[in-house]
């Protein structure tokens, strides 16, 4: 084996660098932790694993920080590779798996910490949001290990967990995910952390999380707006309207903002601009600058294989004059939508901003239950331009531009953050809400 066979092609290096940077941006790594892995066929046709080097900075990977140990035997590649290499090699041996990832998913970690006497078997984590429910199978196993880094016990347990679940968590350490591609493995890490974050926010708002989990278990469809389609790995690089240079740029800018501002977890949410017969559609709206995602030109007419999300875009366009739509799974809104004012049992119908900018922009933001009639949804979009759906994300519409619709989830996130922060401090939200907003 000569060194030259360690030289990955540019595309692979680029992918590792960009996913690495994105994971730092999304704050699910620290500077030197975690690892990324992909199945790799070398120039001789030999199956290897491309894995980040031990202690490498995932936000600033150089080509030499990617190692290529053999998948079949122990070779010198393992000297430099991550200390979790053995675990990843076994994950890659699972059927249909071409990539895996390990991240320090802080919110999920915090929410699954316990002070039980060890050894003990921690409780699994049950997501309360639709992304976590549908993409993670409604459960993330959590394991405690005496030696929680690269131990033989982990090599045994983690691949086994991942044979049955997309993501598994090592208590007080981080999550492992598998994927058909590296971006899918990253996607699952983001969704898992997002679920952890939402539960933490709900707890700050005194939402009865256990009660909610019980309800989700008995009837998920009553808690979530619609079942989510599977994560797609096809067409990631597709851009079907390259001639519209300004618009392509707008889509990428919008996607990057959604991701960087954490308005929706990686490759979730959707944005579109309509034309007369077709619409330009980003089905994975949250796109880090360098990774991107599919930009599709799609007929405005309904098709049998439309996802539910796409169906809603088309429906809004059919019924209204709006030109742009943005749908984001804003975690703060997801949590806040389940809030009840102390002493009140009524489900939340509107979020009233308590901050100056929020009041200026919205006055009130309507909240719909997960199951609602579509006419009400349209009516609210007409009147308020943005609607929060419990278990259904934030829908924003605009008569002109992507920028206009991006502003909706961005503002809603901030509005919810202030309210959650104020409530956490014990302030009385009712007193802080502008009185006139109750009429608007």
């Amino acid at each position, binding site marked *: 084996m000569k060194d030259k066979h360690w030289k990955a092609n540019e595309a692979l290096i680029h992918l590792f660098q960009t996913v690495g940077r994105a994971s730092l941006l999304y704050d699910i790594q620290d500077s030197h932790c975690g690892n990324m892995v992909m199945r790799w066929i070398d120039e001789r046709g030999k199956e290897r694993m491309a894995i980040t080097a031990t202690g490498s900075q995932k936000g600033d990977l150089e080509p030499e920080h990617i190692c290529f140990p053999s998948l079949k035997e122990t070779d010198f590649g393992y000297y430099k590779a991550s200390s979790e290499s053995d675990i990843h090699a076994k994950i890659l041996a699972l059927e249909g798996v071409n990539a895996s990832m390990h991240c320090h998913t802080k919110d999920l970690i915090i929410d699954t910490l316990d002070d039980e006497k060890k050894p003990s078997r921690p409780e699994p984590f049950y997501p309360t949001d639709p992304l976590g429910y549908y993409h993670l199978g409604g459960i993330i196993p959590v394991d405690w290990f005496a030696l929680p880094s690269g131990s033989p016990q982990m090599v045994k347990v983690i691949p086994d967990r991942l044979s049955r679940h997309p993501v598994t968590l090592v208590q007080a350490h981080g999550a492992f995910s598998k994927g058909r591609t590296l971006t899918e493995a990253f996607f699952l890490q983001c969704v898992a952390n997002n679920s952890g974050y939402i539960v933490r926010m709900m707890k700050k708002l005194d939402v009865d999380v256990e009660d909610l989990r019980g309800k989700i278990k008995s009837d998920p469809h009553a808690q979530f707006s619609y079942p989510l389609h599977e994560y797609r790995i096809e067409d990631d690089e597709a851009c079907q309207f390259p001639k519209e240079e300004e618009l392509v740029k707008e889509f990428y800018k919008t996607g990057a903002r959604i991701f960087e501002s954490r308005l929706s977890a990686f490759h979730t949410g959707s944005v579109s*601009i309509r034309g007369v017969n077709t619409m330009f559609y980003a089905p994975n709206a949250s796109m880090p600058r360098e990774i991107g995602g599919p930009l599709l030109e799609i007929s405005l007419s309904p098709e049998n294989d439309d996802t539910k999300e796409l169906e809603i875009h088309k429906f809004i366009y059919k019924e209204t004059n709006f030109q742009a739509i943005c749908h984001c799974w804003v975690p703060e809104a997801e949590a806040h939508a389940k809030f009840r004012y102390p002493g009140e049992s009524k489900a939340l119908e509107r979020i009233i901003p308590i901050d100056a900018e929020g009041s*200026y922009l919205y006055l009130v933001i309507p909240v719909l239950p997960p199951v609602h009639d579509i006419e009400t949804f349209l009516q609210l979009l007409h009147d308020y331009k943005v609607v929060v759906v419990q278990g259904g994300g934030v829908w924003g519409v*605009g008569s*002109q531009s992507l920028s206009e619709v991006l502003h909706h989830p961005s503002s809603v996130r901030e509005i919810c953050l202030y309210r959650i922060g104020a409530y956490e401090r014990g302030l009385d939200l009712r007193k802080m809400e502008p009185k006139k907003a109750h009429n*608007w």
Partner: protein
Amino acid sequence: MNISSFPGYHGKILQIDLSKANISEKPLMPGVAEEYLGGRGMATRLFFDEIDPICDPLEADNVIVIATSPLIGTHAPTACRGHMVFKSPLTGIIGSPNCGGSWAHAFKSSGYDVLVIKGKSSEPVMIDISPEQVKIIPQAKLWGLDAHETTDRLTADPEKGKEYRILCIGPAGENLVRFSSVMNDKNRAYGRGGPGAVFGSKKLKAIRVSGRRKIFVKDEERYKSGLDQSQYLMRSAPITKRLMRELGTLGLIKLIDIIEMLPHRNFQDNLHRDDDLDKISGETLRKTILEKASACYGCSIACQRRTNVGGKKGEGPEYETVVMTGPNCGIYDLNAIARAHYRCNELGLDTISFGGTLACAMELSEKGYIPKKDWGQMNLSFGNGDILEKMVDLITARKGLGDILAEGSYRLAEHFQHPEYSMSIKKMEIPAYDPRASFTQALGYMTSPTGACHLRGGYAVSLAFFGGTKEIPRFSLLQSPIAIRNMQNLGIIQDSLGICRFTGFAFSTEPWARMASGITGRNFSTARMEEIANRIASLERIFNIKTGIGADEDTLPMRFQQESIIVGEKETRIPEETIVKMRKDYYQARGWDEQGVPRNLQ
């Protein structure tokens, strides 16, 4: 207070037949108000029902409708605007200007909602409207007076307790100048499309109104919630709270130059020197000739300029006037422009068409197509600010070459056998934004129902450059058709509510929906208002088709198709295939057929 079957309205249409000197009233049908709301929508519907589309615009058959809206008479911000519809003598299609000031509010206070004028008087007359009576009064002695003198005469010595508001024409309208305006409060104009000539052809010099009739608001709480919301948002948005008051619309001039959209020398290019623009900027106007900001009735934005040039006082000039009579004629002399503007207001000329027509004459002269012998005493060279004021007089009086210029740039250029030098669409002069710098603006001009107009066709400039989050790409084929349709629809809604476009810098339709619903007690949701806007756009189109125009007229002058300007360091023009594609998509977005005919032709 009159509680009609449609709150927000008195429920009365006033009809005047000048041929028969007949005055009558008819009830306002609630169904029409439900379907067309008011202002532009209401006026278009009633006009459509009354007129023969192929009539001669300067004959008795032409019909003028001026409509108010349910918001006029309330405290809704800027709800002071009347909307006038007629067949335009400049374009031969629908004329549809909108005007602020105080007249429309006063007219509604006289107890009527809509005024319909038909026929033609044999002698100069004025119409005097008050709650007590309506009269047609011979006024030969006013004929020949300018709009300011007329207004002064008609407001002098009011009857006790009465305050008069005047709508009138100046000599330009009397002399049937095809781009003459109807003036309100001396300096506010129903400007575009030649309404002054239609008044003149009917020998209608003025309409005087007075009254104190109030309207009934059905659901005060709902109305107030929208009102509070609108006031709050207007106090917060910089353009509505401060910028317009401080700089007026002319504050835009440098911004429009930065985005390479400011026309120069009859749209030959978009190149200006910074120090030239400094001479005519809003900032300069403020430092030199501004006396104070002023406002239309009920408006806190106050974009109007009260100015003084060498002891002569007047109002304005606005951005459009300055650019069209200034840089577009190669002129950067603010005093000369302001004096010409004052004169246009006195004599009753539309300043956009005046500037566009003069620029066309200058180019025809420069290229030798207007022989020097026809110039008279005038040196028709680009950059000659000395002739501005004189040309207003010559055109108004139809003297010498002024007689041909009084026909507008298209007929002028055609007369000298070079119609390609008229920068007009459907014979109406293009306003002060070069369409090559934005597909959306180009499409707005092309599809404006009244000919090239940034207000009826959609003010896409704000979308592209200072629309905040609403900014759209300048050159998107996908986005332009729907973006401009939506912009046009917003304009139709605003015109039909009787409110000012500039409120759009603070908010869109939502607070208006609450106010309109509260006042009328009916559901005017934003969705319904959009439906109404689509209906009005189709009706305007149907009228235009009945006058004989079609898709071929929805185009741009050859200059914009063939000659490039530099935008963003790239040579840009709007080639024919782009025009055809955008037009086709726009028709489809409107639900019209491939020829631009509304499918629900009625």
